[in-house]
């Protein structure tokens, strides 16, 4: 059976979720591997969420928010950017493929971009294979 990655996507309510909706109503086709979780703002995404998602068996995590300057809460995504930059460096440093955690700015009008990002993320994670490094152990059978 071919490997179908499980990807958790934290989407900000104001831009990226709306972008996803637009992709949907525009009947754009994109990969079904993503489990979207709506958050108020990408600044709301604690690095713990990302690590926890990986621990619970996600093969990859995507966080998506508004473009810089477009944040509904003015600067939430700017704070997020700093946090994610550090987390990515750390993950890479301890030997986790950087593609396991990706970030994207997608606005409400970018339905096409949303579909495209999802496809790209899915394919890049598919290429990596299942994520086992940070997944809870002792449950495989």
């Amino acid at each position, binding site marked *: 059976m071919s490997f179908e990655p499980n990807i958790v996507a934290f989407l900000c309510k104001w831009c990226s979720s709306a972008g996803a909706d637009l992709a949907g109503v525009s009947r754009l086709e994109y990969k079904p591997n993503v489990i979207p979780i709506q958050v108020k703002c990408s600044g709301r995404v604690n*690095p713990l969420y990302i690590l926890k998602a990986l621990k619970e068996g996600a093969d990859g995590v995507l966080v998506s928010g508004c473009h810089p300057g477009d944040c509904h809460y003015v600067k939430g995504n700017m*704070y997020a950017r700093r946090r994610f930059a550090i987390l990515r460096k*750390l993950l890479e440093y301890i*030997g986790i493929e950087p593609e396991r955690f990706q970030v994207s700015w997608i606005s409400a009008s970018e339905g096409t971009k949303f579909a495209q990002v999802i496809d790209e993320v899915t394919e890049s994670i598919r290429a990596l294979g299942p994520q086992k490094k940070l997944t809870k152990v002792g449950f495989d059978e």
Partner: protein
Amino acid sequence: MSDIEGNIQAKAKKLLKDGTIKYFIGYENGSDPLHTTPCFIKKAEDVDKIVWNPLCVNNLAGYLTHDKKRELKKGEEEDKKPIGILVKGCDSKSLVQLLSEHRIEKDEVIIFGVPCDGVIDPKKLEKVLKDKNLSVNTIDSLTIQHDGKNYTVKVNGKKYSFPKDKIEMSKCSDCTQPNPIISDETFGEKVKKSDKKDYKTVEEIEALPLAKRWKFWSDQFAKCIRCSACRNVCPVCYCKECVVDSADLVITPQTTSSEKANKMPWLEKNVDPAENMFFHLTRMMHMAGRCINCGECERACPMNIPLSLLTKKLEKEVKEMFDYEAGIDVEAKPLLSIFEEDDPGDFIK
């Protein structure tokens, strides 16, 4: 007894006598001649216990927050007098960090600063002495003196000379802050150490291929027994309730049952690669822009996990990406609650 030690004792004595401070946190001789240990002096007549020498490794700044976490006993009144504390250059950075985060306020502490020319790693010292056929078991007296590029160690009356890098804490070799940043009184002459931080050890890991990096770290973290020594010894890990304990820790009687029931078990108590990695990554995320690389976590780790390779990496990235250094400025805003328009964002699609 050195002048510095005598002056510290005298000043502490004066402050204790006139009741300015509730107690003084310094160092005293430890369980064996290779160790000193933190001491809490409450009475003026006890100041003779205080020592100052290159074995004074502990970072004492973290103790300043301990009283705030204590639950008062029945009928006990909180002593609001300031605490006297001895800090080296690196320790003063932790202190500055605590002040900038308002964990303590300046009027709650009287700072005794000592310029520091490096401190000894007891583990390394034990090893080099062993090579000279000196077992810890047979050492009755030991004194250490700085001597240019070397340390002169006098053991049971006999002198030995060791190069600095053989017995010094590894954090000291590239120390850029040997003099206390903040102090109410400084004891001893200013010293000069390094001009530049040295990230060679970090770069060596960075240069490894991904799979090897993972092998290295997963092997290291496989050793972890999750005793929390690294967290508890950390001067800036002061939270009363730690996020990694939240599986079942509840803090107040006001917490509602649904809050308790829905508390996310971020971390399980299991000791396995995933949970251990989660613990250390979480700790590192919380250290970003706050860790001053005092090396206490690495020193405290009974399993000898090279944690400073993580903290140094953090320090390096924070400096490179955001030009930020923790523990320098009392007025500084925390790294993660500010941003610049041109923060790195190439990783974002």
